[in-house]
Structure formats: C-alpha cells, structure tokens
C-alpha cells in the first residue's frame, strides 16, 4: 500500500515543470557507487487486512505487575480527545500562533504537575522516569560541581542503571547506594546520614521499588545537608494519598507519570516528569511553556527559556533533549482533568486497599511477606520458582521476579495491585497458590 498521492501523469507533469527527463536524474549528486540498485530484502507491500492479521498479541487477563509501569483505569475521554488529529499530527509548537492548543494543554499539564507535587514548576516532559532522573543528576553536577551521587538501593534498579549509563564517562563523579533496612524495607537512616554531605546529590524513591513508603519527614532533615536532593516517584497515583513531595523541600521531583492516563504499551511510551524550584529553573532540561500576550495584549502561550536548549546553546545546552513525550503529557492533562481531586484520591485508596487485601490473603496462605514497612500498592513476598510456574500455568502473572535484581532477597517477588484488579483476581491468586 502506498501513501503517495500522485498519479503517473502528475509525476510526469512535475518532471516537466522542473525540466528533467526522469526521476533518477534528480539524484545525480549521489555518486554512482553509492546508489543502491538492488531491491531491498523486506516483505510487503501488504493491504490493511493482511497487516491486521499479522499483528496479533495475547496479553494476560489477570496479572499483578507493576514495578514502574502500571495498569490503571483510563477514562474513555482520554482516548477520545488525545486521538484528535489536531493534537496527534502536530509538530513541536515552535510557531505559537498556529499551536495554541498544544501550548495551552502543556501549560495546564505543567500547572497540574506543579500543583500535585507542590513544586515551583514542571517542564513539558522527559522520555521516561529513568532519563528524567539521569538528567536531574546532570543538573546537580553542572549546577554545583558535586562529586557524589547517592541514591537509595530501593530505587527502581532500571533507573539506577540509566544513571550509570549517563555518567559512566564522568570520572569525577562517584555513584553510591544507600542500603535499605532489611526488616522495614525503608532506607537505612544511619547509613544515609553518614553518606550525605554538601558535596552530595541525593535521590530517594517514594514509595520505593518494594512499594514501601519512606519516612520522608525524617529523611528530609538529613537530605537538607545534601548539595542537591531529589524525590523520585514512579507511581504518581500515590500523590492521591501522600503529602506532596515539595513539602519536604527537595530541589527536584522526578519520575514517571505513565499512571496518569497512559497505557502500559509493553514498556513505552512512558512519561518522564521533572519538576523543580525557582532557584534551579534555568538549569532545568527540556521544554517549558510560558504564558504571554499577543500583539493585542490578549492571553497567549509560547515555548520559553529557550536559551537553555540545544537549538540555541548547542554544545553548552543544559541537555540534548529535543522531542519529548508531548502526547503523553497531553493524555496526563486530560486524565487529571477527568478524574479530578476526589477521583485521584479514591484511586489511590483503592490501590492501597487492594494491596493490603492481597497481602492479608498471602499471609493466610503462609506466604512470607518480606518487609514490615507501610506499603502503597506493591509489596515483596518470598516465592519459590515452582510456585510461580504453577500460577503462570493457571493463567496468572504473579508479579515481577526481583531476586536477580536483589540477590540479598532470595525468592523475592514484587506483587502490585491497582483498581484494575478485582476482588476475584486477588482471591483467585489465593486459591491457586
């Protein structure tokens, strides 16, 4: 199937208008030995029905998967609006007079993320939570010349890996992990206290990778000693229940807002979040929309603070990011508008309650729940391979294996519950164990 709208005659008409004999002549600047003469070894062309038949997928019906990517309810209005081609097929809003829709929607996304986190401002999005965190470490290093990045070991391992990738050639910066308390699953406060000083950039995930809620009020006292510190949130729905992270005084709040109206998509697109303080705004990576006025003094929006960015500052930019996750940010804005303050709080309470219900049933079955700290919607249990296999054969996906990520937790399995699970799912898990 071709998407070229020209007939043979029209192609000839264009050739005549240009004044060349045939289309190959248009490529005369490509040296002959660099012209590809063969036929590409790829399949097709295929019609739509053949394509439909070729792309078939089989997701599991009952699963307890999370660990940074979550299955939440998405109101129908999100797809209905986000699929409008005016949003979907537009470019980055460099020309504000013809892009006010995207610009205002992103301004509203920024406003809602800043309100929810109680931070000064949010950028227009990053690729995902891990790259948002990696860019926040770059921000800390460039702003303050810090020597150490200290991150809690209970921060999502995938995020910690991406930091390592981004910083691997920066020999002057050391990356250290703060251990977790093996009983509570929370950060080891004494160790944290020993590791943090004014040369340190500190990052801590809340709720942590094990689903445990960290005592941020206590941590904040230690964190205040750090040269720069940030809170990482991979499950933004927790903001429906927990105090806004900005209340604890961090320099950045980073993470992933896939949970806000974006499906799991087998791992992407996700939605990287980066919120920061007034003091750090000029070091922030990524795009940001500002309110302004048009030639008649009326309200209008445009991209602003562009002098930080690669298209102006080139090699000295705060980041190399150009395309971001604009459509995912739009979905988050529509989602937050659709669920509203009470909806988000209810969903958060459902997630936390569902996790507690599953935990109760697991304990009744004699399954070992590893940590005793308070959880949000995830928790770690000990489960042997044979039991997991049996559950999978019964058509369930009983969480994520984490023993390879945390050898100190043999048999570790991370279970997640959201409002998309039912009571029956949870009870089914108990029965089949």
């Amino acid at each position: 199937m071709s998407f070229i709208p020209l007939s043979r005659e029209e192609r000839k008409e264009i050739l005549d208008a240009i004044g060349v004999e045939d289309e190959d002549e248009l490529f005369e600047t490509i040296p002959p030995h660099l012209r590809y003469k063969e036929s590409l070894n790829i399949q097709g062309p295929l019609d739509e029905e053949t394509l439909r038949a070729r792309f078939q997928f089989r997701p599991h019906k009952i699963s307890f998967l999370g660990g940074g990517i979550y299955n939440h309810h998405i109101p129908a209005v999100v797809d209905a609006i986000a699929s409008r081609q005016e949003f979907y097929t537009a470019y980055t809003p460099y020309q504000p007079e013809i892009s006010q829709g995207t610009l205002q929607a992103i301004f509203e996304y920024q406003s809602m993320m800043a309100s929810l986190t109680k931070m000064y401002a949010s950028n227009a999005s990053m690729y995902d939570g891990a790259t948002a965190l990696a860019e926040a470490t770059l921000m800390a290093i460039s702003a303050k010349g810090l020597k150490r990045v200290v991150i809690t070991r209970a921060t999502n391992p995938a995020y910690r890996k991406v930091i390592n990738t981004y910083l691997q050639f920066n020999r002057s910066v050391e990356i250290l992990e703060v251990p977790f308390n093996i009983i509570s699953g929370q950060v080891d406060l004494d160790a944290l206290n020993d590791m943090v000083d004014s040369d340190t950039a500190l990052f801590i995930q809340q709720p942590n990778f094990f689903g445990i809620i960290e005592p941020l009020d206590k941590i904040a006292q230690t964190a205040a000693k750090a040269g720069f510190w940030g809170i990482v949130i991979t499950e933004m729905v927790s903001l429906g229940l927990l105090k806004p992270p900005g209340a604890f005084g961090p320099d950045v709040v980073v993470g992933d807002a896939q949970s806000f109206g974006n499906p799991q998509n087998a791992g992407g697109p996700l939605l990287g979040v980066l919120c920061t303080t007034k003091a750090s705004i000029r070091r922030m990576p990524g795009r940001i929309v500002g309110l302004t006025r048009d030639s008649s003094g009326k309200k209008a929006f445009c991209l602003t603070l562009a002098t930080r960015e690669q298209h102006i500052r080139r090699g000295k930019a705060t980041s190399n990011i150009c395309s971001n996750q604009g459509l995912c940010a739009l979905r988050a804005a529509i989602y937050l508008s659709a669920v509203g303050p009470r909806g988000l709080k209810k969903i958060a309470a459902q997630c936390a309650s569902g996790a507690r219900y599953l935990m109760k049933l697991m304990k009744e079955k004699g399954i070992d729940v590893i940590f005793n700290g308070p959880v949000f919607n995830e928790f770690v249990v000990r489960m042997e391979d044979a039991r997991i296999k049996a559950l999978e054969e019964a058509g369930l996906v009983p969480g994520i294996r984490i023993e390879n990520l945390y050898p100190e937790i043999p048999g570790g399995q991370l279970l997640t519950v959201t409002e998309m699970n039912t009571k029956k799912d949870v009870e089914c898990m108990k029965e089949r164990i």
Partner: protein
Amino acid sequence: MHERKDLTIFPERVEPLLSAINKQGKNTRQMPAPFDVYPLDDIDKDIQNEDLPDLPDVSEVETVRHFTRLSRLNYGIDHGIYPLGSCTMKYNPKICEEIAGRVKDIHPADTYAMTDILKILMELSKDLEEICGMDASTLWGAAGAHGELTGMLIIKKALEKKGENRSTVLIPDTAHGTNPASCTIAGFNPVQIPSGPRGYLEASTIKDYLDDDVAALMITNPNTLGIFEQEIAHIAELLHNNGSYLYMDGANLNAILGTSRPGDMGADCMHLNLHKTFASPHGGGGPGSGPVLVKRHLIPYLPLPWIVADEKDSYTLKWDSTSSIGTIHSGMGNLAVLIKTLAYILSLGPEGIKDVSHVATLNANYIKTRLSKSFDIPYTTPTLHEFVLTDKRQQANGVTTMDIAKALIGFGIHPPTIYFPLVVNNAIMIEPTETEPLEELKRFADIMETIATLAETSPEIFKDMPFVSPVGRVDEVWAARHLILTWDMGESNKEAAVSKQ
C-alpha cells in the same frame, strides 16, 4: 483545594484555563472501586495528605469541550501541507495507529505476551538494518537526540576498549543543535567545521582537522541544506585511516530511502528518527523514536537489553554484558512507535520504500523551481528532499523571514523551518515530503508567490500578520521576561502584566 482565580489580567481570546472553570463539586465521575477500603492507619499521618490533591474540579463535558476547543487552535498534518524543513512532516497512516494500539494492555514483564512482541521487534531491526546497510541495531532510543547520545556513548565505549582517549567530535556548521549537545553529554568536545562554498563538506576541509584526538565526525546526509554530501565516501576513508568513526544523523533519511544507504557510505554508527522518516506522528512534540544502527565492530557496545534468539526459534532479552554501554531507558523505549514503524514498512514494501525518496525529492524540487523566480536561493548545488530560501529579496522592502512565516499562518498554512540552518542568513527551509498531492504543492507555491508580491506592493502590512489566526503575533520576549510557567504564578506577575499593557 483552594479557590483559584484565572489569570484575569489577560483578556480571553478563545478558551479559559481549566483553573478558571474549576468549582468544587463539579466532577461527579464514579471511579472503579473493587476493594473494601482499609483505614490505612499504618501510614504515618505526617506523610499522608490531609487535603485533597490540588487539581481542578470540572465536569466531564467541560473536560471534553475544553480540550476539543484547544485542539481547534492547532494545525496538524491532516489539515494540510506542513513544510517544516528537516522535520519530515508526512502523512501518518491510520492503520499503523490502530495496530500499535493493540499492545496497550501488555506489561513488559508479561513474558508470555512479550514473546510475540520480541519477534516483531527482531523483524523491525532486520528491516531497518537492510534499509540502512548496517549490521545490527538497538530500538530503545526514545527520540532522535536520545539515539545520538546512545550512538556517541557506543563510540566512547569502543574507544575506551581500544585504550584511546580521543575527545574531539567534528560537526559541520549545518548540523542540528542536538548533535553538539549529545556529544557534550557523552563526554566529548564538539568542534564545529565549515561546510564548503557549494553547501557540502569537502574532504580537503576534513584533512585540516584530522589529528589523533578526533574520535568521530557527526554528519547529516543529505545535510540541512538538502544537499547530498558528495564526498562522503572519501571522507569516511580519511576518518577510518585516522582511527576515527563516522557517525551519521539519520534526520534526513527520507531523501535517500531505498536510493542510497548510509552503511554503504562508510557510516559506523547512525540513528533514525522513526517519527520523521517512518511516518509515526509527532504528537505535538513526541513520543518519537530513535533506533541506533551500527556496523559489526560496534555490536558489543550496543545498549541492553539485547534481543537474542533462543533454541526454539523464539526470542528472549539478554540483560547482562560487560561490553555494553548499559541501559538507556526504564522500559522498552517508545515501543508503540516501533510497532507503527514495522506496520508502515510492511505496508510500503521494497518498491514503496524507494518511491518515498523519489517523490519526496520530486515534490521539493517542484516547489523550489516555482519559488526560485521570486525568492533568493543561496546555493546552486542541486538539492534532494528539502531546500533553503532566504528573505534577501524581500528584505529590500523590510519584509523578513519571520514576517513571511507569520503571513503563511494567515493563509492557513504551517510555516517552514525558519532561521535554520545557521550557515544561511534568515533561512526558510522547506520540506514538503512525498505525501503531498500536486494540488497542495501548487497551493503552497501560489501562496508563497502571493507573499512575495505583497512584499513588493504592500510591505507595511506584514508587521501586523498573521491576520486570521487564533491569536495575534505572540510576544516571546515578554514570556521569557516574566516566566509565568503555571496558572498559580499569574497573580504575582499581575503588576508586571498591567504595567506592560
């Protein structure tokens, strides 16, 4: 939540902010509630939020109308020609969107469901490698710049393996800003080099810059003038003899799709922009996708995870390797975009792929031929899928590139890329792509000619343009000076706003 005022200091033109529609109790949505609610008293009160989350309270119909009205202030490729140079705004086939939607309910840890997906990703990798003449690839780059960074980290790692500490990356002055920015983050020192008088990099120029500190040349081919880098094979040879790598930015691959392959030009490493060349939508800024392709000698450094075949002719993910640069994303890149890309490639087939570069070049040259009568064309070298004009002839009457762009908006067309590339003063960079009907090409050329005529007969009207648009010319300087970045910041800036009015 606290009552919010809208930023009433600004008279509304079209649509108020959500914060102005907000009124407590308007949102009556029933949320799914499968579980009995636990008291949650195990969570410390000092950590719990005693207030409701600070969000606007609006009804469903208001949400729908608000965003629908906003959408009408936008312009998309489905409206008409979107001739942004080097952005490749082509039609996004609807079937690709439908197919990608099928992965939405899959979690990446659902290994059973992922088996089908890995098979598809492997097929996509093979197709992209064939199209580019490269040996292997990674699909996890989330955008072009993310791919660039990944590619430059791969080169850094390969140099480290060889025990070399080269720091310079040469970048022609026609390059996108992301190129030097990506180099800096990867720990290199970008050095700008001049493209020649004919609009392409000459091998003799490269010779002057090559020394034992040069890690790589980063080049876009064709470059942002739309000109094919005709000495690329010779340049590649010089680089390789110097122990340096050739990195190719695939931003302009649309010009040569199926017609010429970066791998055959000598590229060691390159990235693609699937949201440009392979027709996935830009979404008002993303998600894009930036796969990275390499030649055999760079395979060990590709980011994790690797998709590998197991004994049963199916695929699994390999997460450990001591040679790899590591992981670059917490999930699977922008996976849904990858699915769209394979659907697009399969729908076109080998001949369809080749036709893309042919018609993209044909269309661009049609517009160039038409406009060369009324606008200044700074380079005489033939161009492929895009070309650059300047405002030199209109400047004589005080009409600038910015004025021309705003005038186009008034005619209902999204302007081309402007003031880029930087090597051309007041550039207007036009790329129509292969998916424009001839009638649309004619309409665009007609309007540009009309603008050129107006610039001669009534140059004074341009300063007030655009005439017919949702807002008048937007004051970007005012935005940067006042930095109103959220709806909560409005009040504190009220004074400033009023004093300016």
